[in-house]
């Protein structure tokens, strides 16, 4: 992410991942966002998560739309392929990209304007298709680049920097995702890297579309008194409902099980998520219970965070399509073209 320039040389003591890469290998260009922007913290969490799970940088595709959040793919994993597209249109572009090559890891970075207004329909349909994509909404309730208009996630009663009060109901991506049949839903806070990193790792391992709503305060336009997306408000109202640990496939899982209230969910790739300290009436695999829990606590003004819901049973877009295991781009042309003999024969139907 760096928001300060760092020397090219790395210190020999820097830790290396399974690929022998240091965390510096997962960083990107200097951020041009405002100092203290929540988005930079999310970028830092992404850098860490991607480094920890030891992904080849060039096997990552990072895509975004337009807005402050959408600038951030430049700030992580220089060695990844980036695509800064058009406002709200990242989900279809990521969908098409994934259709062509299912082997890459797709990270989609979006904001509340991008995802909840101009691109809302696209996000909904990417969820329905269960495209294997880590979809991060860097949610600050405000349009930053155009200087402070309310976004569709602004809460009723929240005040703009100029003192104007929002009267329209917000679109809550978590509840929306639940209603659309999203198969992985998390909410976190940019200021909480300890929570965010394991969620990101689990999202990458998820079978399909992973929706991450990350409250990310805008220090310039939405961090004042009366804002419900400020650092202070979020810290005061955050309810860390569920602690989740991501356990990669190779690790020993059994040791953690048996803890009071723990729930383990095995991911499609054999890895696991351990939910710890889960409240009594909460089951992250039971959609109805999750909805009831969220409604109860959100009604009290609490911002419930954590990995809220997982369903590993739903096939992703390629599984539904019966795609080959190899990416479509690697199916040789000889297999794609039926040839002249077939053409001659099939034309008998056009006589």
């Amino acid at each position, binding site marked *: 992410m760096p928001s300060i320039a760092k020397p090219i040389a790395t210190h020999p003591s820097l830790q290396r991942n399974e690929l022998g890469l240091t965390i510096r290998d997962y960083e990107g260009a200097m951020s041009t966002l405002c100092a203290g922007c929540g988005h930079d913290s999310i970028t830092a969490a992404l850098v860490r998560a991607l480094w920890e799970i030891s992904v080849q940088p060039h096997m990552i595709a990072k895509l975004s739309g337009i807005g402050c959040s959408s600038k951030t793919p430049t700030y992580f994993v220089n060695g990844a392929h980036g695509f800064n597209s058009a406002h709200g249109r990242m989900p279809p572009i990521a969908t098409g*990209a994934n259709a*062509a090559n299912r082997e890459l890891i797709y990270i989609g970075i979006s904001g509340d304007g991008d995802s909840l207004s101009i691109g809302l329909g696209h996000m909904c349909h990417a969820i329905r298709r269960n495209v294997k994509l880590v979809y991060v909404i860097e949610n600050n309730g405000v349009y930053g680049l155009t200087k402070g208009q309310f976004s569709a996630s602004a809460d009723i009663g929240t005040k703009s920097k100029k003192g104007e009060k929002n009267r329209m109901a917000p679109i809550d991506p978590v509840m929306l995702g639940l209603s659309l049949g999203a198969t992985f839903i998390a909410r976190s806070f940019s200021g909480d890297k300890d929570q965010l990193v394991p969620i990101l790792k689990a999202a990458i391992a998820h079978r399909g579309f992973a929706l991450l709503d990350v409250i990310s305060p805008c220090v310039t336009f939405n961090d004042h008194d009366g804002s419900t997306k400020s650092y202070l408000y979020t810290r005061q109202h955050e309810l860390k409902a569920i602690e989740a640990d991501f356990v990669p496939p190779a690790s020993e899982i059994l040791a953690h099980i048996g803890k009071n209230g723990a729930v383990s969910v095995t991911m499609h790739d054999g890895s696991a998520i351990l939910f710890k300290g889960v409240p009594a009436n909460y089951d992250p695999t039971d959609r109805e219970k999750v909805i009831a829990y969220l409604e109860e606590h959100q009604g009290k003004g609490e911002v419930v965070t954590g990995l809220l819901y997982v369903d590993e049973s739903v096939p992703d*877009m390629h599984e539904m399509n019966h795609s080959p295991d190899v990416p479509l781009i690697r199916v040789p042309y000889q297999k794609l073209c039926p040839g002249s003999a077939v053409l001659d024969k099939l034309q008998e139907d056009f006589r």
Partner: protein
Amino acid sequence: MRARVNDFAIKLANVNGTGSASANGLMMQAIFRMGIPVSGKNLFPSNIQGLPTWYEIRVNKDGYTARSLDYDLMVAMNSQTYARDIREVHEGGYLLYDSSWPLDPALVRDDVNFLGVPYAQLCNENFRDPRERILMKNIAYAGTLCAVLNADMDIVAGLLDEKYSTKKALRESNLRALRLGYDYARDHFQCPLPFHLETMNANSDKILIDGNTAIALGCVYAGATVAAWYPITPSTSAMDAFKMFCEKYRKDPETGKSNYMILQAEDELAAIGMVIGAAWNGARAFTSTAGPGISLMNELLGLAYYAEIPAVVIDVQRVGPSTGMPTRTQQGDILECAYASHGDTRHILLFPANPAECFELAPKAFDLAERFQTPVFILTDLDIGMNDWVVPRLQWNESYQPDRGRVLSAEDLEKIAKFQRYTNEDENQVAARTLPGVHPKGSFFTRGSGHNKYGGYTEMPDEYREVMDRLARKHKASAKFVPTPIIQRRAGANFGVITLGGCDLAVREALDRLAEQGVLADFMRVRGFPFDETVQSFLEMHYFCFVIEQNRDAQLRSLLTLETRVPKEKLRSILVYGGFPLSAKHVVDGILKALGEVEKPALASFVPMPELQIEE
């Protein structure tokens, strides 16, 4: 009336949703199988059931099969349009109607021969199911047509056998209905009529196919693996056909897996986005749509142009603006596609004239899109896309290999020090690209925001212009690679006629007819944009040219004046844009009228006149 063999036109007036389409298609196919040049034009409403629909069949032994407008026989099966339909029959022609009810005397014409067959009565007597009674009326009039037009009953019965090979009861009903209409005609009319069919052998190397099916087949052969679309008339059947062909020919023989993905998007914005995403990753990807879809795609077409990502867009044009008339044909998207998106953009366009060219130009579109890393449009229209055309059998060259353009492999990347996306352009101004996941050195950042030749973000005027200027040169360079125009010279011609796409047959027929009257013109059909030097020299060698197209605003003419050195005054438009396919009559009338407005000796010093809009 003098006997006329294999040279006539009939029009069938029906109510849509009553099953007439299969009877009309049956007649057309039967004539095709008799080896006679034929065309069928379906003039249908944007509706499921109850509105007027027409079907026109033109038979012409010399191969003139554009729309006729001169009807020898009207099959009047729709009382709603009866008054209008009867007016369209030419003097001495025939009208076939359902005589189960008396004819309104106000509608009778003395100069037309009336053939009444009590279809409703016959079907009520012979069929018990109410739905069947309605459906079988259509097959019954087809039976009458067989009798009065001398169609080969064995061929028609054979077609019904093929169609209902697995539905014995339906086959039996259809054959019975066919016989009812046929026998009634033989018993009551003098068969055949003076104009009628006689078996020929003009179709042994031909097929009967619509453009949407042909273009879908072309996409399969081109190796397209990702298709994204949003349903829209009149392009829907293109994707339906692509799906049908993929299910047949793209299931992996060993694993049964789908070597393709068809994404039905939430809208056209998404459809083009998916195409761009897939092409960014190296797949051959396309979308099929119509004008309203192109309007929505404008935003991302600019992204593909500026970020240099291939995309193939099939635009089956219909009547605009706005919703317009979805089931009527037009060539109204030429300018929209040529310059789609905000800012300075220019695209490559291909204009097939018939289904055979749809098939041929589909792989060409993918080759051009990948060679020039840019969107390529195939502009067909409803007439080409949805009507069955008799065209030469499609050929496939086994030596064809997709032109993937300049894409660096892992080995290429291994050898170079550093990859910079928009540098080292070739003679066509194309820089090499990389595909994600191939090699660590290939990574770069694709963006629709201002970028320099290294792909980096910029807001600097010189860096921005450097890239934009190369894009302009690249578009120009593609002129040499788009299909060259079809030109037909005529000795002694004193002007040129320019057209495109589905106007082809009508215009060529018109020029033959004009030549019979001593009016001689050279012919050019443009097949692609940007225009190559052939187009330029055709314009230069003629003192003036007519430009014939199907839109109100003379879009091809505008494009020619904008993109060649031709003076605007040299081009005179003939515009037919009411929504039905072009007829040679429109063109002949238009050219004669325009020439008549000029004093004879002035032909050599032609004075431009206002746009000519032809009454339809």
